[in-house]
């Protein structure tokens, strides 16, 4: 995929595009106590999640947390062992996949190899008994939306990975489905294309107003595009909230560790305040007095003439900022982010200060 393609995708969708003309209010989706077992292993433990119409929700979590299973249950590709899945308020538990009116983009390339891009894109419309000419026109509109009209006559193997996933996106959107499901569609792409397509997906989703569920293990991806993120752990949702909420006020240590970058420091909790490196930091949630560990974001630490002493372990130039790892006097490793103009050298003794931002807490492992 070229940079020009991406620009084209953003700009070419014209006002007479039939897809844009049908922009709707989206459809609500909910999981109510959904349970899924594979043999004797329970992968979803009574999942509860309500998604608003037109919302972009990401299911974020490490491998094996149940996020893909949840998406597949919503798609009807897996049958839940308990609970209810609703689309537009109706229980779809007994409705087969092909009658759920969904669009889905898969992690692996899923275009039909024997069909051209145009025929691939029109496939869902033909399944809905649309006349060939009308299906072709709407498929052309969908390809225009993702900026690939010029590749309509190509076969999938003649496209790059990014182009294939954009065609898959067009194919999923062309039927104007009630819900768009994205199962790690970017994970097979290289870094640059991943960012371009990620932004393109969000832009198109906002224009069409389609309810979207996005499964990813990449927290940066989820933070960049989501209205809300559901962080999953061991078959359940640990926290759901806006990207800002999850980043600034992670309710659990797992969320703090998974979303964004944090340093884990030894602390002492005294009457609801964490004592860390001589600082008193407010804590998120309730925690009893005693030894604990706290999660400190790099942007909440700064170099200061008088503070806790530390030794520089490494310093990385990241373009607009510099990120430095220091070792504190008690042996803890602390990452901080500071202006590029503040240069530090390996082994240099520095002083650091922790800003009084709330920190997530977990019991200290013995």
């Amino acid at each position: 995929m070229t940079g020009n393609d991406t620009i084209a995708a953003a700009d070419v969708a014209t006002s007479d595009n039939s897809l844009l003309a049908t922009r709707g209010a989206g459809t609500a989706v909910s999981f109510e106590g959904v349970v899924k077992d594979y043999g004797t292993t329970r992968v979803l433990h009574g999942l509860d999640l309500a998604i608003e119409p037109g919302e972009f929700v990401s299911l974020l979590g490490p491998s094996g947390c149940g996020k893909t299973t949840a998406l597949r249950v919503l798609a009807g590709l897996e049958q839940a062992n308990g609970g209810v899945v609703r689309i537009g308020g109706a229980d779809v538990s007994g409705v087969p996949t092909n009658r759920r009116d969904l669009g889905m983009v898969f992690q692996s390339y899923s275009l039909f190899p024997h069909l051209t891009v145009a025929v691939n894109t029109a496939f869902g419309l033909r399944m809905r008994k649309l006349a060939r000419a009308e299906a072709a026109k709407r498929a052309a509109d969908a390809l225009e939306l993702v900026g690939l009209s010029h590749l309509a006559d190509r076969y999938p193997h003649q496209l790059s990975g990014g182009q294939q996933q954009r065609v898959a996106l067009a194919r999923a959107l062309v039927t104007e489905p009630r819900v768009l499901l994205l199962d790690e569609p970017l994970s097979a792409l290289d870094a640059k294309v991943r960012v371009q397509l990620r932004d393109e997906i969000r832009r198109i989703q906002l224009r069409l107003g389609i309810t979207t569920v996005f499964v990813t293990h990449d927290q940066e991806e989820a933070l960049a595009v989501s209205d809300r993120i559901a962080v999953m752990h061991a078959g359940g949702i640990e926290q759901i909230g806006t990207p800002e909420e999850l980043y600034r006020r992670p309710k659990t240590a797992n969320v703090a560790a998974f979303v964004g970058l944090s340093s884990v420091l030894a602390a002492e909790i005294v009457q609801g305040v964490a004592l860390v490196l001589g600082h008193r930091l407010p804590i998120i949630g309730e925690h009893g007095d005693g030894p604990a560990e706290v999660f400190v974001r790099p942007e909440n630490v700064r170099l200061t003439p008088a503070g806790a002493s530390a030794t520089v372990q490494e310093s990385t130039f990241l373009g607009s900022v510099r990120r430095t790892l220091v070792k504190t006097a008690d042996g803890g490793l602390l990452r901080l982010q500071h202006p590029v103009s503040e240069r530090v050298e390996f082994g240099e003794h520095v002083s650091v200060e922790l800003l009084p931002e709330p920190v997530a807490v977990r019991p200290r492992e013995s």
Partner: protein
Amino acid sequence: MSAAATRVAGSTSGSSSGATTGYAPGRGIRWLIGILVAGTFAIPIVSMVEFTLRDGEGHSLVHWAALFDPANAQRYQPIWIGLGNSLALSVVTVAIVLFLLAPTMILVNLRFPHLRRMFEFVVLLPISIPAIVLVVGLAPIYLVIGRSLGTGVWTLAFAYGITVLPFAYRSIQASIDATDIRTLAEAARTLGAGWPTVLVRVLAPNLRPGLLAASLISVAVVLGEYTIASLLNRQNLQTALVVVNKQDPYVAVILSLAALAFAFVLLIAIGRAGRTGGRQRRKQSPS
């Protein structure tokens, strides 16, 4: 660079470009091997051709012409009946492969992958059972089939459906392994396709080389089958050839040659079917 140096470079890089390595036989040895192998196959075939051309005094096409002489129609009738039966059996056997075996394999691969090993064992089993042993088990079953479906020769296709299983299975499974059928099927399902559409319009075109090869191999096996038809008292091409051979050995050999030629054409067709997808892909890919 000297020839010796070239040879070393070729062998150390593990190149498959056809460079001569120290272990490859020389040109003369290769020709000798080629002639021996070709002769092994050619001598009996050439002898058969020569035999069919004998007319007592010299050589002529008299036996070949006799096969199509209306005056001999009655004499050779069993052959034409046998050929017709074998072709009908081929069609039913291929139908069993395409409409029973292939969908079952897709079902096992998509929905019951844990059964695949056991399924594979069962379908490969017939290759290890001699046809004559198979008939011992099939005979009582054919008594029942005779009572319910009649004693028509086409019912032999049920037995042939079993004998072709190992060959057809291998061809189709190779195509299934080369295709991500799970993702294709799921993508089609989310786009609104029912299972019949998924099978016919999405999976079958992508499994085409395997399905075609399985069909052609099935035809070849059915046309060459003698034991089961003979022991179950059905007439097919091979049993007819044995009958006619007793009256006219020349025409039996002519038809054996024709069967060999047909099998040869089938093998070429199978080879081409397997390669077509790859060649199209290369032709169309941007460079």
